[in-house]
């Protein structure tokens, strides 16, 4: 039978291609992980009490003095850990949404999920006078409500994410209007607090917040792995995916649900940090090439981006600490414009 005759010469063609893709993936991951490590080292070393690399190394292994221990483990480490965890969560959320909707502009901030969190948090802060963990819960709830609205809006459609994206942009604008209304009506000092939250900040992060975001990230791993398996098939179109036994409706729920959970949790503690979710996959995918989703790489790129942005926020202007959201917003906007110019209207996925 010609089917057998034609088949499997020594050295499988598909194995060769797969291992080439795999090698490139490992190389990219190693490089991005290296960048992340260097940034983390810098974040732990510099500041009002600078540490030399030797000092830092000794302190990390338990050989530091009292001041060194305090500076590293109480001040810098929680802030760094939050930047890493939130950056990773946002990078994953962006990669999931962009792969699902096959659109490089899809990200939780542009879809209004962060906007929903903002409205809920600002309302809780200004009208109900809520602070602390309850504020985080309100922000989470707000993001979730928007996500449910989005899923309902996108449910009827067969293919493509344009309806979802347009609905999200509409919701974003609505959220901005509501937040502005709340801010205008508030007292100046309270409005100031709300504005700081709204720009997104990593300063004064307690360990329990880091642990909460990390726990949510860990709990999402099975859903992320399942999405990583299904999304490449969903990308082939509704009909092809169904023909391969994948229910595209279910994939949509899992991927959007996971992205919302990660975004809303991050947003709840550090505020709506913009553009990391948009930029991380846009950097990760071209590095990997070959049509890869780049979910894991996006996580690492997101972690590096947010750590770097936070370094800029802390030390760029001598004597002033900027909220990290200001930095990601400024860098992200420039990146977005570059993305639009460079891709020349071509879909990136």
């Amino acid at each position, binding site marked *: *039978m*010609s*089917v057998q005759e*034609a*088949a*499997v*010469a020594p050295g*499988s*063609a*598909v*194995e*060769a*291609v*797969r291992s*080439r*893709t795999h090698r490139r993936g490992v190389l990219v991951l190693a490089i991005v992980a290296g960048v992340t490590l260097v940034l983390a080292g810098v974040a732990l070393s510099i500041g009002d009490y600078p540490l030399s690399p030797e000092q830092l190394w000794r302190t990390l292994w338990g050989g530091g003095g009292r001041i060194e221990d305090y500076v590293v483990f109480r001040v810098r480490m929680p802030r760094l850990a939050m930047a890493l965890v939130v950056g990773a969560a946002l990078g994953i959320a962006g990669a999931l949404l962009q792969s699902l909707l*096959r659109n490089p502009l899809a990200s939780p901030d542009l879809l209004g999920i962060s906007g929903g969190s903002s409205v809920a948090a600002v309302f809780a802060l200004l009208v109900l006078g809520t602070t602390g963990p309850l504020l985080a819960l309100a922000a989470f709830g707000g993001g979730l409500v928007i996500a449910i609205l989005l899923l309902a809006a996108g449910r009827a459609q067969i293919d493509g994410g344009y309806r979802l994206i347009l609905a999200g942009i509409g919701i974003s604008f609505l959220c901005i209007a509501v937040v502005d209304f709340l801010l205008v009506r508030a007292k100046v000092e309270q409005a100031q607090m709300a504005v700081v939250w709204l720009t997104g900040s990593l300063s004064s992060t307690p360990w329990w917040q880091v642990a909460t975001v990390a726990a949510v990230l860990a709990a999402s791993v099975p859903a992320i*792995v*399942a999405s990583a*398996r*299904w999304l*490449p*098939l969903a*990308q*082939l*179109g*509704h*009909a*092809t995916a*169904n*023909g*391969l*036994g*994948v*229910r595209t409706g279910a994939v949509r729920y899992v991927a959007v649900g996971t992205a919302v959970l990660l975004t809303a949790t991050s947003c709840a503690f550090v505020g709506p940090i913009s553009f990391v979710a948009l930029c991380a996959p846009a950097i990760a995918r071209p590095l990997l*090439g*070959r*049509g890869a989703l780049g979910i894991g790489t996006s996580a690492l790129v997101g972690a590096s981006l947010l750590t770097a942005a936070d370094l800029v926020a802390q030390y760029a202007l001598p004597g002033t600490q900027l909220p990290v959201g200001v930095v990601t917003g400024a860098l992200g906007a420039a990146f977005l414009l570059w993305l639009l110019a460079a891709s020349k209207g*071509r*879909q*990136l*996925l």
Partner: protein
Amino acid sequence: MSAIDSTPRLAARGLKAGYPGRTVIEGLDLEITPGRITMIIGANACGKSTLLGVLARLRPPLAGRVELDGKDVATLSRRGFARTVGLLPQHPTAPDGLSVAELVSRGRHPHRGVFQRWSATDSERVDEAMAWTGLTELADRPVGDLSGGQRQRVWIAMALAQDPQILLLDEPTTFLDLSHQLEVLDLLRELNRTRGTTIVIVLHELNLAARYADELVVMSQGRIVAHGAPSDVLTPAVVSEAFALEALVMPDPLTRTPLVIPVPGGAHAPADAN
């Protein structure tokens, strides 16, 4: 013919199908003959793509059922169904930069659990599918760089890697020039003859359908007008009913299959314009 006896039977019973507010197919019965090539032909909007979609479980029937070996397919698991019945839809899309080998590999999905790793069997099937469609040399090339004919071979290879016993194709030759159309149909016929794969194709090109089909299903306005061997089915009366086209039908001088030749100046009102 034990290969054909063991091939599952796909059938539609009392099928009603369509979209909310618009019934396209009503009361349709059809048994796909196992191990043969069946081509579904008919005018635009006659319901042939809708029928294929329901057979492939893309959308549930409004009434009636689709059966696989007598079992209602709605009761089967989606992945289980996909191991038996493959589908090549009209407009599949591939992400930019994805290589031929990796796209073909995606056909293995129904055979792997969500958390199961890639196996040697998976590699073997994908290599076979690529060798068979003449794509081994192109394995590392991005699908987007290929020509239309090559790309269609890639999608067929993906369907082969899925290793289905029944393969459904929705207009697999659209946008291809004649020689590439023939190439695709030759490939499908060889698949049918060597592996005994049951093949169902929705096709626009009447004369190619007549040449390559073992059985023709002629549809008009959501009904089956005729079903049988091309030479029995393709008569001027049937062509007139299904396509509102006045035509001469004569044996193809090379293959003896029916050849439909529209009469110059004859009636050819679109069938859906009444």
